[in-house]
């Protein structure tokens, strides 16, 4: 029994009772595949693909020792972006992004534990042998009270911004840093030697394919983000859509990145602070809308209003007349 709703041209069709033409589907599939294959080969030969070399802790600390040391001290004193990130890496209260009062990030807790003072600084330094000055500095630092550690690291953090490099070694203006100068100095040397890269790969044994710790440390530095800026990949540069060099990137991500460029998401307010969460939710709503276009009155009428279909099916409408 036919349903007897009113005919709606945006939802319904008239069953086709007209002619059918001979059509070779298999030939279309083969020809279109070959055409695409040829175009892809030509594009690959003409344009190649981009390959900017990775940043390592070694390359970073060699290129910019001061930035490395300035980042390392924030990892040690727990003020770096990673140390203050909160879940899923660590248990810092009230920093997770929220939608209104709800923070899924917080609710799920720590799943990928990262403890920068230990994982990025003290742990790797502990693996160094044959360096009594370093061993003593580690012991002194560990034995000190948190308040004392804070005084040393705060003093170093201020001073390192004025540090220089002389003869390949970091030179920090003198001050009351306790063992901290030795710790950071040695960490920088460990980095320039390549030993820190090896130390930071998550070790579940011999093999590892998880670069969480190395990436978080590298991304905390000014050096890495200045490279991103130089390649036009930063958030406020519509970076999500871009590729390194002059290659086309991901233009289909335009609707995701546009929100970061406009108020209130780019502002210094609750929305701005929770921009990632709000943009995700907004995109999920828009995606649901995209999915449900067939059911949304008005939106599903746009094809009829725009009259583009009259061009597509002009032969058919002409034949009808």
């Amino acid at each position, binding site marked *: 029994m036919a*349903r*007897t*709703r*009113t005919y709606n*041209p*945006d*939802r*319904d*069709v008239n*069953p*086709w009772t*007209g002619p*059918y033409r*001979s*059509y070779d589907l298999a030939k279309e*599939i083969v020809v*279109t*595949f070959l055409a*695409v294959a040829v*175009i*892809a*080969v030509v594009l690959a*030969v003409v*344009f*190649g*693909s981009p*390959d900017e*070399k990775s940043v390592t802790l070694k390359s970073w600390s060699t290129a910019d020792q001061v930035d490395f040391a300035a980042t390392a001290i924030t990892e040690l004193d727990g003020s770096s972006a990673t140390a203050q*990130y909160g879940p899923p890496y660590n248990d810092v209260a009230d920093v997770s*992004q929220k939608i209104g009062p709800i923070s899924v*990030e917080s*609710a799920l*807790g720590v799943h*990928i534990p990262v403890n920068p003072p230990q994982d990025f600084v003290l742990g790797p330094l502990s693996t160094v042998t044959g360096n009594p000055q370093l061993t003593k500095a580690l012991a002194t630092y560990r034995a000190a009270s948190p308040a004392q550690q804070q005084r040393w690291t705060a003093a170093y953090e201020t001073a390192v911004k004025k540090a220089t490099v002389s003869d390949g070694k970091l030179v920090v203006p003198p001050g009351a840093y306790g063992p901290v100068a030795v710790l950071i100095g040695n960490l920088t040397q460990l980095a320039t030697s390549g030993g820190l890269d090896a130390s930071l790969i998550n070790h579940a044994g011999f093999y*590892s394919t998880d670069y969480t710790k190395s*990436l978080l440390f*590298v991304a905390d530095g000014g050096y*890495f983000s200045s*490279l*991103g800026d130089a*390649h036009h990949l930063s958030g406020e540069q519509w*970076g999500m859509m871009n590729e*390194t060099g002059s290659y086309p990137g*991901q233009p*289909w991500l335009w609707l995701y990145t546009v929100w970061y460029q406009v108020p209130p998401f780019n502002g210094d307010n609750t929305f701005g602070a929770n921009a*990632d*969460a709000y*943009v*995700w939710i907004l995109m999920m709503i828009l995606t649901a809308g*995209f*999915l449900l276009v*067939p*059911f949304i009155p008005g939106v*599903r009428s*746009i094809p*009829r209003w725009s009259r583009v*279909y009259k061009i*597509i*099916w002009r*032969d058919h409408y002409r034949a009808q007349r």
Partner: protein
Amino acid sequence: MTTVDRNDVEAGVGLPEDADQWTAKIRGFLMRNLPPGRLIPDRQPSYMASWIYIFGALTMGALAMVILSGGLLSLEGPTWWHTSTVGLFVNSLHLWSVELFFFFMVVHLWGKFFMAAWRGNRALTWMTGVITFMASIGAGLTGYLSQTNFDSQWISTQAKDGINAVGIGAFFNVLNFGQMLMWHIMILPLAVVAITILHVLLVRTRGIVPPIELEPADPATAATGGEG
């Protein structure tokens, strides 16, 4: 028990006493919805007279190139392309196949939107298309994360914030190269291909949507849905 001969079995005659079998039910469903003439048609309605209709096939051709070039990259591993000129060429082929895939898919999407191709009970066809698009974006993201170069480092450290903000980051760690590579070469390609197959089968079962008509053909039996 009735006996049948080999010819009957191969013709899929289907005895009433076997009608409750899962096999018989599945076969019956397939035969009703996708008889050979509908699965692999050799005729098309005369209203299909536009170049816009080839963009679905072009998209699938590009997907085939993505999978082929990805397969070639898999032969040698994820860092091969940094040190081999052949590897670099195959990587370029993979990148441009992906660009072509999204290019053709978006043109196909625009065409289907302006044709209101969801009409006549075809909403599921539209929806599977959208889901394929979304799955492809995921496949693209994990692909970028698998490049093992600066771009992977940048994208992973940026993307983590959005993904962590909604809690997904606790389970989907974009900084974990091994995990991302496996999502990219196994889980997401299977998802994209499976949903694409479903999408194409829906097109086959429903038929190509007829042109927009402002009035019903026969107001007396203005039935909705229907296959056109």
